[in-house]
């Protein structure tokens, strides 16, 4: 039986087309794009092309606004630390939410610990939404940056970034959004949404691991966090990862094609999964909102009385790859900070399961999954001292 890969929010396979686009840049077209000879000019050209493609899928018409990085994490780090260091004379206060990815949260903590910044971590409601009014209320005279993610990686909540962007613009505060999970899934326009900085990562959209990008609106200053050579207009040093960048460009281009249609199909599978789980298993909690404000590929549920890692292991033995916000898989003692932030109790949060759909999934896989999940849950609940049956 073919395995079912339902962990596309963790990473995705490189698509064949993307790999074909990257291939020449390993052994043949290998020149360092900073040099001036023929071998270099062909890679410099390839990077320029990729830059335009990436700019275009987020609505930027100036490819110089794109800085290539080593991934979503570096993009988040550069945006937050870079802006903070550049604006620290103006103020040392940052606003973010309590359900951001660790790349954002730990960048904020780094600024708190090493550079004396203050950070406000806004709460979210039971579906994971940040309230734009809370953002406005949190603004102080010394607020220099607001960073709120576009869509949450665990529970799929799509945040009201356009509204938050407008508030930020009105107060002359830079607005960064971590769009790693959103790019290629929902429409994005940095101008309409008043976004000043935006992070994305190639391996979440069938591009390669180890490459991402930060959009930086023209005129927004930041202190480079990778110090060294003059690459990326002196904003990000290090020899360019040419095949990676080419792969990101191609992946962006492909993701943009028929995005609406593809997302609609994914949403159908998502809704069927939710329905099938809720209909056949009792004491299930859906985490995150229903409908349009949920990422089309995201399902996140808690099964009471059992623990997430054991669900994952059982699913793996049954041929399904998925993930959980249980403490055991997060590498800490607490379960996911996102699940706790939406108000779940620890013991419930331990039993979470995230299914994230991707380009390769089919409705047949969804049905196959729905066949097997009740048995897995049942087996574990039979073992659980918390379950009364």
């Amino acid at each position, binding site marked *: 039986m073919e395995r079912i890969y339902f962990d596309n929010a963790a990473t995705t396979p490189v698509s064949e087309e993307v790999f074909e686009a990257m291939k020449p840049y390993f052994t043949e077209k290998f020149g360092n794009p900073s040099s001036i000879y023929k071998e270099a000019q062909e890679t410099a050209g390839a990077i320029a092309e990729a830059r335009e493609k990436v700019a275009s899928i987020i609505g930027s018409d100036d490819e110089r606004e794109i800085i290539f990085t080593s991934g979503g994490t570096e993009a988040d780090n550069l945006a937050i630390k870079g802006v903070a260091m550049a604006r620290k004379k103006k103020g040392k206060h940052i606003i973010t939410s309590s359900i951001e990815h660790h790349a954002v949260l730990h960048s904020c903590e780094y600024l708190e610990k090493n550079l004396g910044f203050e950070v406000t971590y806004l709460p979210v409601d039971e579906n994971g939404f940040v309230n734009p009014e809370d953002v406005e209320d949190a603004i102080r005279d010394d607020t220099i940056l607001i960073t709120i993610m576009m869509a949450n990686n665990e529970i799929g909540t799509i945040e009201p970034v356009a509204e938050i962007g407008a508030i930020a613009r009105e107060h002359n505060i830079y607005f960064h959004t971590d769009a790693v999970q959103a790019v290629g899934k929902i429409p994005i326009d940095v101008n309409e949404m008043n976004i000043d900085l935006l992070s994305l990562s190639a391996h979440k959209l069938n591009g390669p691991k180890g490459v991402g990008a930060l959009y930086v609106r023209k005129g927004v200053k930041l202190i480079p966090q990778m110090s060294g050579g003059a690459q990326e207009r002196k904003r990000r040093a290090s020899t360019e990862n040419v095949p990676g960048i080419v792969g990101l460009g191609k992946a962006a281009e492909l993701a943009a094609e028929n995005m609406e249609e593809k997302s609609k199909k994914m949403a159908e599978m998502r809704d069927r999964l939710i329905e099938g789980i809720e209909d056949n298993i009792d004491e299930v909690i859906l985490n995150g909102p229903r409908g349009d404000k949920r990422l089309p590929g995201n399902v996140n549920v808690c099964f009471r*009385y*059992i*623990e*997430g*890692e*054991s669900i994952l*292991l*059982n699913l793996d*033995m049954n041929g399904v790859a998925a993930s959980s916000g*249980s*403490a*055991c898989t997060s*590498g800490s*003692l607490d*379960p996911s900070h996102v699940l706790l932030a939406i108000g779940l109790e*620890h*013991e419930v949060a*331990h039993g979470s399961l995230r299914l994230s759909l991707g380009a390769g999934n089919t409705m047949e896989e969804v049905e196959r999954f729905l066949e097997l999940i009740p048995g897995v849950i049942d087996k574990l609940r*039979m*073992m*659980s*001292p*918390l379950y009364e049956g």
Partner: protein
Amino acid sequence: MYSDKVMDHFNNPRNMGEIENPDAVGQVGNPVCGDIMKIYLKIKDNKIEDIKFKTFGCGAAIATSSMVTEMAKGKDLEEALKISNKMVAEKLDGLPSEKLHCSNLAADALQDAINDYLNEKDKENNVSEESNA
């Protein structure tokens, strides 16, 4: 990540379930941490005649629970008390380092159950002594 032995015990747990009218019950962990192990004992002539477990927890928690029941079954209480978490982990061909301290508590649950039994017996003895007095 897990050894084959762990996966075997996780997948086909031995002695899973409850004992009706057990002679002793032990429990460690709490749901907040994501691990609860409960051990039920049937004891006869100072020997563990039957043992069952129920566990809420990760793969390591379930496998160690299963393993400890297998190790304890048929042993007399003094011997069973000597089973340590470390011995359980070794019998499972090791556990990932990050699991060694959080989910490797099954021996504690067993000890808790045995102590529960011995305390009860102590009390009974005390009661009989008292009535003898």
